């Protein structure tokens, strides 16, 4: 930690400050010795107060209420009664809850792993200098990201219907043995839903990585070329390290999306067949709006929030740790 004095700041500013003026006063005030009697400047706090008030009313207070309700049995209307940690215990003892948690692990692979790998690959190809039509590819590949979930589901339900184009194409290619009940199978429907989620998320990852690639100094690529690096070597030696920040963002957002997976799955299978594609978010919805057990839903929400925070911290720690290393 360096000390901040008027001299150092003046030196950084590149020249002397005017003999009189606001800068000098601010700098002098900034360098004044700190003591218990010093008045706190409330100005900055007043500036952020409106935003903090909104944040508190719409985020912090509901969050605190949610945590409180997670320790109660509450049907959403009447009086809540304290039940301690039983709502949290039931998350681990209820087989459907456990299945939802296990399914989240699978969805992380599809919602985070697949879009990041494919997004990196695609960005590396279309982000190369001199690539023609980059804007077109970027737009087309980003399109799924801006479609509403309902539209996405209409498209994929048509494609994956038992007598739909996907099975039709497989049959036409002599691969009829590969035809499946894509959205009605206990063994593969979760994977198929994960792939639909990956298709949606991939465009976002790709655009993020493309922006990152464009921010990598061209000198590094030139130097790699001079050193005789192949495109693959160039990717691993220059592009990938340069995208560390974007990777952290993509990973954080996509893992959280996997934790919160709801809309696509709800619109297609509602967690079925059976309970093979349930997720914590679907269980939360059922707890809150079907079972009318808002306390249990709140407990699940708190666990999901905590898990998201932990994962985010781990990802940030990994990236920052490497950056500082």
């Amino acid at each position, binding site marked *: 930690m360096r000390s901040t004095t008027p001299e150092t700041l003046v030196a950084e500013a590149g020249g002397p400050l005017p003999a009189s003026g606001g800068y000098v006063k601010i700098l002098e005030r900034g360098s004044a010795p700190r003591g218990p009697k010093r008045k706190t400047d409330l100005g900055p706090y007043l500036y952020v107060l409106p935003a903090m008030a909104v944040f508190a009313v719409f985020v912090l207070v509901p969050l605190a209420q949610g945590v409180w309700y997670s320790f109660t049995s509450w049907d*959403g*209307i009447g009086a809540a009664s304290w039940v301690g940690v039983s709502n949290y215990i039931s998350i681990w003892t209820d087989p459907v809850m456990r299945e939802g948690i296990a399914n989240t692990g699978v969805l992380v692979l599809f919602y985070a792993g697949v879009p990041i790998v494919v997004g990196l690959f695609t960005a590396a190809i279309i982000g190369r200098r001199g690539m023609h039509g980059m804007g077109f590819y970027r737009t087309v590949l980003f399109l799924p990201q801006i479609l509403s979930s309902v539209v996405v589901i209409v498209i994929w339900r048509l494609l994956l219907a038992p007598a739909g184009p996907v099975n039709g194409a497989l049959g036409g290619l002599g691969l009829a043995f590969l035809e499946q009940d894509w959205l*009605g199978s*206990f063994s593969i429907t979760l994977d198929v839903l994960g792939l639909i989620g990956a298709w949606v998320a991939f465009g976002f990852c790709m655009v993020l990585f493309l922006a990152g690639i464009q921010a990598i100094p061209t000198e590094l690529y030139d130097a790699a070329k001079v050193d005789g690096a192949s495109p693959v070597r160039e990717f691993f030696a220059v592009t990938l390290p340069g995208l560390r920040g974007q990777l952290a963002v993509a990973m954080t957002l996509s893992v959280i999306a996997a934790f919160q997976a709801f809309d696509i799955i709800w619109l297609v299978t509602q967690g079925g*067949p*059976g309970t093979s594609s349930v997720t914590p978010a679907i269980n939360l919805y*059922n707890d809150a*709006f079907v*079972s*009318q057990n808002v306390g249990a839903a709140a407990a699940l929400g708190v666990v999901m929030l905590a898990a998201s925070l932990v994962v985010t911290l781990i990802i940030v720690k990994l990236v920052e740790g490497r950056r500082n290393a």
Partner: protein
Amino acid sequence: MRPRRQALALPALVAVALLPSGGAAQATAAHLAAHSQSITLTELDWNPTGPDNTFFIDVNKAFEQQNPGVTIKRTTISFNTDVSTIRLRAASPSAPCIIGANEGWSGVGVLAKDHLLVPLNKYAAQYHWFSRYPTAVLAQQMVSQNGKELGTGNLYEMATVLAGPQSVYYNKDLLSQLHLPVPSTLAELEHDMAAAKAHGIVPMELGLEDQVQITVPLYQVLDAITPAQKLANFVYGIGRPTVASIGMDKAAATIQGWAKDGYFPKSVLGISSSQAENNFFSGKGLFYPAWPGYSGTPAQDARTGVFALDGPNGKAEDQDNSNQPLGISRSCKYVDLAAQYLNFVSGPEAGKIAVKLGLVPQIPVKASSTQEGPIFRSELTLANNVAKSNGYVPYFDLSTLTMLTTLERAGQSLVAGRMTPQAFTAALQADYSAFHNS
């Protein structure tokens, strides 16, 4: 109806005069008209599209015309949204005056338990609702005083005239190709399906990707093997019968047997109910279990009929409820007027509007329909037969808050052969016991 409403005007007027605040609760349309007052009655239902939506538009218009000064401000949402949000909506101080909540514990049960609805006993007596509707239909809107039992106690909602019986559609052309009569018993249905299968025809179109359609064939079998009263007692929790004691294990074994015998389409779990409907009406399957209200091209209409299996005593029995029951919210300021609306929307004039739009009414209505075709005539006959025998059975899944979800999930496993009928029954029993022991 008109003379009685006018006769009510005087006492209502006196009541309003004596009650400067809160007196509006006593206001009837006649009183309002006499005082040139205008009132907006708010109403919430779950019919945002189709002929059901048109029914409410037309009924509200007719009610407004008959009651000058009254405007109905209607909000319409999807059924699923209604089920999941109705308690919050009803608990709001600005709740709609007239609210549509489903029968069973997820709707009228919890609303009555939380005292969010006005008891309608007084109005039921005033307007003779119990002589207008089969008891089996109105019992579905009743909740005990302590909020712990369904089917008894106070009437908290009134059935609108729209009926919602589950039934089985059949393809007349295919049935005649196979030289088979329309089945009325479970044995006849199974015989027909076996014959269809032998001739390479899909015996029963069904789509379970979106889960809910499993209820229709399952309930048809249940209705055929278990007396209506026994099923009603189970739903209402009277005597806490077990799921097995009402024949669910046998019904589940029957459905699983049909799946194993190939009576459903090959990809039944991957087909949505709407795809199954398209398959049937395009002429592919022999039977299609569903709710009423289908109409297609004249050719499709001409070749389609509808039936429901008879109960074990040979009576016409069917799982059914009002397609849109309505209650009056606790925060309603115009309770008398709202009750007057409920009387109208469940009465013969509303019935005529329903029939005109091709919707099956709960009560016998003499009217012609612009939509009248063979399907609609079959549906009308079926509804009349069930009403005559008081054979309406509450939907099995109304028995607990979560029974529908439990049944839908377990139903997919049952059809896929991943769950035995015994395990299926045990899953439903666990749901029932958990609810009643909580």
